[in-house]
């Protein structure tokens, strides 16, 4: 079983600082992590290969920081990493990103492609579907459980109010939710061993993509602004005995419509 897992590196959202005057997030200097659901997908891939044999390839597109960020995927059990790093790729929208990833995947053999349902930062959730479309693969979304059948996979889809079970033949693309697995915390030894695993890098040239097929120029989506919501604090201090204060607090919450009486 050859599995390709697509992973996105995202800034550590727990460390983001918001500029007070402009409400802009300060992204400069933030450490990067792998997307949460991407790690769920990777964990599932590693488990499948542990049971059935095969190979897991971690595929990621991003800044040179990826070289560091991807180590976590290798430590978690990916057998190799394939990184798509090129300044020309910067500011690619979801369509262009899917196009670039597809080019890379086409050069590989694969039975299954696993993605997270959405990324932890923007959560537009478009790349998996676009990727399946470009590669001409069947796709199953919102998957919380995977089993192997004779001819392919049986997937349980999370429809919030209901579960849907579908079957799909391979090769296929599956995007997963966080319920599918609990990503392992790699041990120090695994982290050390990861440093020795194969890591390949491709640029736009390796993918036979020209400069105007990638990056901002090729993207139809334009980000106009990215701001933190305006926060207004009421700064009300309640004073008195505990019972009184609780009463005042529930009143205040009811008035604000936070709770209903």
């Amino acid at each position, binding site marked *: 079983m050859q599995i390709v897992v697509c992973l996105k590196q995202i800034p550590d959202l*727990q*460390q983001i*600082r918001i500029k007070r005057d402009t409400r802009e997030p300060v992204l400069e*200097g933030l450490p990067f992590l792998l997307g949460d659901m991407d790690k769920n997908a990777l964990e599932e891939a590693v488990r499948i290969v542990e049971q059935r044999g095969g190979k897991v390839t971690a595929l990621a597109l991003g800044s040179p920081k990826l070289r560091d960020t991807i180590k976590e995927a290798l430590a978690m059990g990916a057998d190799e990493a394939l990184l798509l790093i090129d300044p020309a790729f910067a500011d690619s929208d979801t369509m262009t990103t899917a196009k670039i990833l597809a080019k890379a995947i086409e050069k590989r053999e694969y039975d299954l492609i696993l993605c997270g349902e959405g990324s932890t930062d923007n959560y537009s959730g478009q790349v998996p579907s676009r990727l399946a479309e470009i590669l001409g693969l069947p796709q199953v979304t919102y998957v919380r459980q995977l089993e192997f059948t004779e001819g392919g996979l049986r997937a349980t889809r999370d429809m919030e109010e209901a579960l849907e079970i579908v079957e799909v033949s391979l090769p296929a693309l599956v995007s997963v939710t966080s319920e599918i697995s609990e990503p392992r915390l790699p041990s120090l030894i695994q982290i050390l061993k990861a440093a020795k695993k194969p890591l390949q890098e491709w640029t736009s040239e390796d993918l036979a993509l020209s400069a105007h097929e990638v990056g901002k120029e090729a993207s139809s989506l334009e980000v106009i602004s990215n701001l933190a919501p305006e926060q207004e604090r009421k700064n009300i201090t309640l004073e008195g005995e505990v019972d009184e204060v609780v009463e005042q607090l529930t009143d205040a919450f009811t008035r604000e419509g936070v709770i209903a009486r």
Partner: protein
Amino acid sequence: MSIDAKLALDAFKIDEESHIQIDQTRCKERCQTRYCLYVCPAQVYTLGQEGEILIRYEGCLECGACTIACDTTLAWNYPRGGFGVQYRFG
């Protein structure tokens, strides 16, 4: 600026388990000075109603001043890797 407002400026990754332990009985019996209340720059330690020491380990800045001052019962370690305060300026 209150200590809470100061600490709110920082990024904390909070472990479910406290990295600070205290033996309340020993503390009450043996310690009159309660240095921890004053040497901690994050006011992790406050006095409870029964004279016990309350610990807000979540806001610990991991300096270790409390353990240097306390010779009674404080068991302090650094939080596990990847937890605790993460400075963005330093």
